[in-house]
């Protein structure tokens, strides 16, 4: 059934090379986007918990804006709107970036900043789940605000939220497909192109689906490994995450142990 993938294309490659090139763009987008998202998300998440009202409000504004606009609309804002509202010289310079980089960079920025808003909320939840005594003990030991966050709060909060970050990792690689709307030939776009050229829609989409499933499995397993390595004893494990995520918000506790309760 997948035989057609090994046939020659018009440009001398094989169809599977198209898929692999698409996979490459998908992975590059997800990988680099993730680090942008993680860095920005960490800063914004911390910002949401600081005493300073101005920074807290700024961080909240960031989260509200980036979380409440669909990722596709954000993609268009970065790709179509940003070059137009910048000064002419800069805008024209951006428009002249050759493809595929011309769509890769806006997509990278878009996915990174969008996912950052979601990660920021996880970071905030992680920080708020820590018992107050941690910060108070740090203060009692003479640590200032920065040192308290740097050595006491952040390391613990990050270890706590590894399970919930798993769904953000899965989210960012799925959202890379939105980049096809601004012309990036990532995995889904290549699958569609193969289906249009060969009419073997079933094969083309099937292959892409299998690759995405493999990616999901790899992402999930590696997050589990990370969780195992940095897990704080006594808290819930990553494999329970999907349930936790939901029950943590269900007001009726009681039956299922609440992950965060154990820490307190």
């Amino acid at each position: 059934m997948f035989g057609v993938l090994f046939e020659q294309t018009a440009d001398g490659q094989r169809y599977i090379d198209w898929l692999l090139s698409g996979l490459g763009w998908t992975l590059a987008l997800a990988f680099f986007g993730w680090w942008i998202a993680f860095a920005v998300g960490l800063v914004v998440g911390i910002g949401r918990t600081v005493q300073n009202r101005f920074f807290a409000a700024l961080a909240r504004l960031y989260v509200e804006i980036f979380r409440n606009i669909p990722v596709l609309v954000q993609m268009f804002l970065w790709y179509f709107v940003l070059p137009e509202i910048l000064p002419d010289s800069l805008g024209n310079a951006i428009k002249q970036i050759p493809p595929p980089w011309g769509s890769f960079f806006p997509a990278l920025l878009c996915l990174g900043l969008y996912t950052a808003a979601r990660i920021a909320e996880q970071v905030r939840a992680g920080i708020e789940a820590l018992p107050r005594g941690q910060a108070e003990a740090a203060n009692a030991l003479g640590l200032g605000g920065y040192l308290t966050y740097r050595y006491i709060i952040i390391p613990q909060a990050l270890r706590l939220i590894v399970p919930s970050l798993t769904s953000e990792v899965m989210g960012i690689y799925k959202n890379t497909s939105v980049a096809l709307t601004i012309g990036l030939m990532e995995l889904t776009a290549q699958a569609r192109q193969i289906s249009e050229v060969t009419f073997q829609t079933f094969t083309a989409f099937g292959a892409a689906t299998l690759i995405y499933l493999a990616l999901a499995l790899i992402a999930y397993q590696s997050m589990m490994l990370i969780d195992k390595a940095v897990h704080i004893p006594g808290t819930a494990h990553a494999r329970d995450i999907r349930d936790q995520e939901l029950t943590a918000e269900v007001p009726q506790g009681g039956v299922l142990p609440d992950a965060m309760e154990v820490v307190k």
Partner: protein
Amino acid sequence: MNSLDFSIILQAWPYLWSGLLFSLALTAAASIIGLILGTCFALVQHFEIPVVSQIVRGYIAVMRSIPLILVLFWFFFLVPIVLGHLSGIGRPIPIGATYTAFITFGLFEAAYYSEIIRVGLRAVNKGQFEACQALSLSTFDTYRHIILPQVFRVASPIILSQTIILFQDTSLVYVLSLTDLLGAASKLAQLNGRLVEMYLAVAVVYLVISSAASQFVASLRKRYALTGTHR
């Protein structure tokens, strides 16, 4: 930098409004289909019905692992073929992008809703089931009158949050060239060239609706926390 002219939005508003109505209709339909189907999926897994429950679990895992755009492409291609087979004609029946979108979003969201309901079912206190048995209620009556109402009640904030995400995701019907809010804006932008104003306006509309809805969900959650079943 060209001067912005937002009066263009006022002229375009009727068309954008019809697009927004489509987005909302798609959200409503998909959430109803998704909830009904998702509840069935959750119950199938809850009762651990052999074979069916494994199929459902696989379906949910696949739906949650592949991008929505790929799912849209899949259904756009598959639904006519499946309908052709079901109706016995044997050749694909084209049903158009609009119906495809409704079917796809309904089936796709079912996977997400069912996970919410499934966990909600597990969170129901065992005593509730035992009390139903003591009252000799049938299984159907137990779930219909006792269990499911409680599940929906406690899960309603999460269900609503998921519906807000669904509302934002409906913008992806752009890839099927449908005229939802974003589709309307992009079609107008291609005609009049004012894409900056169009896309900014669309972003603001999504932002206002989604954050208003999120605020509502937050207040709902708070109210449940107060009168809720206790911790």
